[in-house]
């Protein structure tokens, strides 16, 4: 199946419009009916430094960037050097012969296609349009009709007037014709099933899905501080929230952002903050506040490579421990880990419902690749019918308060209850005047240090999550029962693990794949069953410590047959790497 896909990439210096070029190509093919998956390589710079944008084009849905590369557009030699390891046999490189002479090592089966991209753009329009020349040339060599990008040009440049659209069209056509005349290299895109042609689907990344999921789940306040790679969440909610009276607030820092999310939740409005590792570090004290005061809180951490400032534009899955253990003292919390764009959408609803129900902080861990890789998603897979808002024990009316008062004599915010959950009254209701506090407290919300009540309140805070069972939903499994080998992953690795499973299965191995969607509480019972039924277990993670494996050891148990396969260079797994790691042990 992999052979059927086509991988295209454009590379150059940052600030040259590489991202928008990639997006034009991806979006157009997406709208034609292909499933596209994009991957951005970039740095925390505005100008200079290498950047590239890869597009995997497939007739079926893909969850990762793909291993090979069929056609590369290079605006400098650095782009060629960077992507050579990915280039497939028989692939080609279009390079900008105006600015350099492309070189590849001898013996590689790659066709070099010099096209004076800059010169042609300059002659026909403006230098910046060299990207359009490249898109035209690419289109010709992969068998797209010359007018394939017509719709996009109108949409993108229509506002700037017909002349601009026309110039772009001319430049694109020049690239198209030049390529046809100057090279014999061709590699057609995979065929598109009739039913897929022009089919309406979504083109979004995990950060978009987080934003959409939050809004649909009733979130009305998003307070955040800009940070790579989470800022796109702010951009998306800004598109969606004002219509519903919602507020997107850029706070002065992550401490304020998280405290604001807590304040709004206390006042009864679903609120969240989005950040990355460095921001989550600043939110540790707020996690404690949410836990101690039993105020719902939702934090989305789009994980980048740490430690400290680390590699802001590179992916990692190393915040699991941070999310699970940070904050002093002992609190309960929930940590979710979506693997796909669709998961990210539904997990936001789950996060808000769980935060409201258990009155705890919920952290959603999204890795950078999932957060930033725009991809095709089927419309029916973002199903609003599955959205159900559950606010838990929330008193919103005077009548509800009266019922409590009739039962208890007066409203008690921290009432000791059977299930450990006390009803939260919205501030503003008569006869429910109350204190919410970070100090240890009694049922009424009086600060106190009495030993008996301290123990009761601590037990209550922990007991309230007893009813939460992650086993039922937090795992996704493929492959045969009792496998010789079980591949385990979390976050965005699902695509690679699944394709590796298919390859290994085709090679005769009995392999299953388990993707874990919640890290705390860990669906331990369900994982234990899977581990016990498998011959060998490999846990794939983008971190050094093998954090999920450590959690499994802690919550599921020690098994010699369970090992970690780790990659922590900031780059996502390739399928070939997964397969090679399997072959080392299997």
């Amino acid at each position, binding site marked *: 199946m992999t052979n059927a896909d086509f991988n295209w990439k454009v590379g150059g210096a940052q600030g040259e419009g590489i991202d928008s070029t990639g997006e034009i190509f991806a979006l157009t093919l997406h*709208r034609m009916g292909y499933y596209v998956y994009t991957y951005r390589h970039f740095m925390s710079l505005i100008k200079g430094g290498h950047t590239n944008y890869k597009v995997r084009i497939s007739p079926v849905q893909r969850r990762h960037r793909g291993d090979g590369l069929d056609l590369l557009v290079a605006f400098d030699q650095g782009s060629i050097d960077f992507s050579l390891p990915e280039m497939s046999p028989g692939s080609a490189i279009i390079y900008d012969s105006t600015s350099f002479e492309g070189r590849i090592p001898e013996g590689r089966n790659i066709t070099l296609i010099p096209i004076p991209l800059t010169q042609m753009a300059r002659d026909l329009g403006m230098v910046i349009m060299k990207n359009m020349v490249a898109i035209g040339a690419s289109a010709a060599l992969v068998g797209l009709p010359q007018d394939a990008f017509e719709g996009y040009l109108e949409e993108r440049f229509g506002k700037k007037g017909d002349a601009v659209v026309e110039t772009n069209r001319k430049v694109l056509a020049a690239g198209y014709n030049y390529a046809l005349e100057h090279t014999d290299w061709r590699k057609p895109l995979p065929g598109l099933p009739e039913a897929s042609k022009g089919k309406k*689907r*979504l*083109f*979004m990344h995990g950060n*978009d899905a987080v934003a*959409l999921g939050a*809004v*649909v789940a*009733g979130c*009305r*306040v998003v*307070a955040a501080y800009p940070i790579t790679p989470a800022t796109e969440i702010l951009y*998306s909610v800004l*598109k*969606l929230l*004002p*219509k*519903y*009276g*919602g*507020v997107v*607030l850029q706070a*002065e*820092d992550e401490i*304020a*952002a998280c*405290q*604001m999310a*807590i*304040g*709004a939740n*206390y*006042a*009864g*409005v*679903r609120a969240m903050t989005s950040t990355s590792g460095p921001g989550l570090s600043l939110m540790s004290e*707020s996690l*404690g*506040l949410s836990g101690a*005061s039993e105020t719902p809180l939702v934090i989305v951490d789009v994980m980048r490579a740490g430690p400290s400032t680390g590699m802001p534009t590179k992916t990692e899955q190393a915040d699991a421990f941070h999310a699970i253990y940070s904050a002093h003292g002992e609190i309960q919390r929930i940590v979710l880990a979506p693997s796909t764009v669709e998961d990210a959408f539904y997990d936001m609803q789950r996060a808000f419902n769980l935060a409201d129900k258990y009155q705890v902080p919920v952290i959603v861990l999204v890795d950078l690749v999932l957060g930033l890789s725009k991809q095709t998603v089927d419309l029916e897979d*973002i199903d*609003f019918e599955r*959205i159900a*808002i559950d606010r838990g024990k929330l008193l919103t009316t005077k009548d509800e308060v009266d019922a409590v008062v009739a039962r208890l004599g007066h409203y008690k915010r921290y009432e000791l209850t059977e299930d450990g959950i006390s009803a939260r009254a*919205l*501030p*503003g*209701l*008569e*006869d429910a*005047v*109350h*204190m*919410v*506090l*970070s100090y240890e407290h009694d049922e009424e*919300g*009086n*600060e106190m240090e009495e030993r008996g009540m301290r123990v009761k309140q601590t037990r209550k805070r922990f007991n309230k999550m007893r009813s939460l069972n992650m086993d039922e939903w937090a795992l996704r499994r493929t492959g045969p029962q009792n496998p010789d080998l079980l591949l385990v992953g979390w976050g965005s690795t699902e695509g690679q693990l699944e394709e590796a499973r298919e390859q290994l299965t085709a090679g005769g191995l009995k392999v299953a794949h388990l993707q874990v969607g919640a890290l705390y509480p860990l669906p331990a019972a369900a994982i234990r069953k899977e581990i016990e039924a498998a011959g060998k277990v490999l846990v794939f993670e983008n971190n050094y410590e093998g954090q999920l494996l450590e959690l499994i050891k802690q919550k599921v148990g020690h098994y010699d047959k369970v090992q970690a396969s780790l990659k922590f260079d900031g780059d996502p797994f390739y399928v070939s790497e997964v397969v090679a790691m399997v072959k080392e042990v299997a």
Partner: protein
Amino acid sequence: MAVNLVTEYKEHAQSSTWCPGCGDFAVVAAMQKALAALELPPHQVVAVTGIGCSGKFNYYLGANGFNSLHGRSLPVAQAIKIANRDLTVIAAGGDGDGYGIGIGHFLHAVRRNVDITYVVMDNHIYGLTTGQTSPTSKKGFVTKTTPYGAAEYPIRPLELALAGGAGFVAQGFSGDPKQLAEIMKQAVQHKGFSLINVYSPCVTFNHEETYEWWRQNLVNLDQEQGYDATDRTAAFRYVYEHNGLLRGVIFREERRDYQSELPGYAAEALVRQDLSQPVKDRAELLAAFM
């Protein structure tokens, strides 16, 4: 009505742990009086505090209260107001909480201008941790952590607020609760962020700046002929020339508050919005991602 409301506040209040003679008693009492005079019952008010002796303000006020972390009253308070515009939101703290650990939030709250009132009980000393130097301690002030005298210059909150563009800046004194209550009334009514810095003596750890000292050194703006509280430049100069030793309303100006600047922000409180609408708007919402 007003008298009954004060009683109502007192009924909800928890019993105090402040030292006898603490200036903060007068601050709470003045706030109860001001809120009662404005006919705001306790359930319609939320008071948010951080940590410190001042952090007990809401326990003793008798309204709804949120006791957050050290220095973090303002972010919580602003978000509560944004979430439910029908609530009257007071943030309260001390000089350590507000001008030390929380000063970043203070300056941003000033410029953000959410419609809340911020009361700072400023006693120039850390009380709850039993007597260390504070950001507003005068240079040379001897405390447990500055045995040779504080080396730093004090924060000047009034000038900071004025420079940050605050629409309401006032200073009170616990020794004149009547004036303080009047200032608080005006501050709560002011649409936008209002700061009341209150000189509130710490009778246990600050033996230099006592009630008597303040009484002798504070200039009462209510008695200053010709003082114009609508002239920001004049206010600046006055505060500077008096080394901040003023009481009364120092500056006021009508400005559009943060919420008035928000696109789509509804007249009805956000907390009462219908959450199911986006589900009905599926086609439109998804169109943004095609």
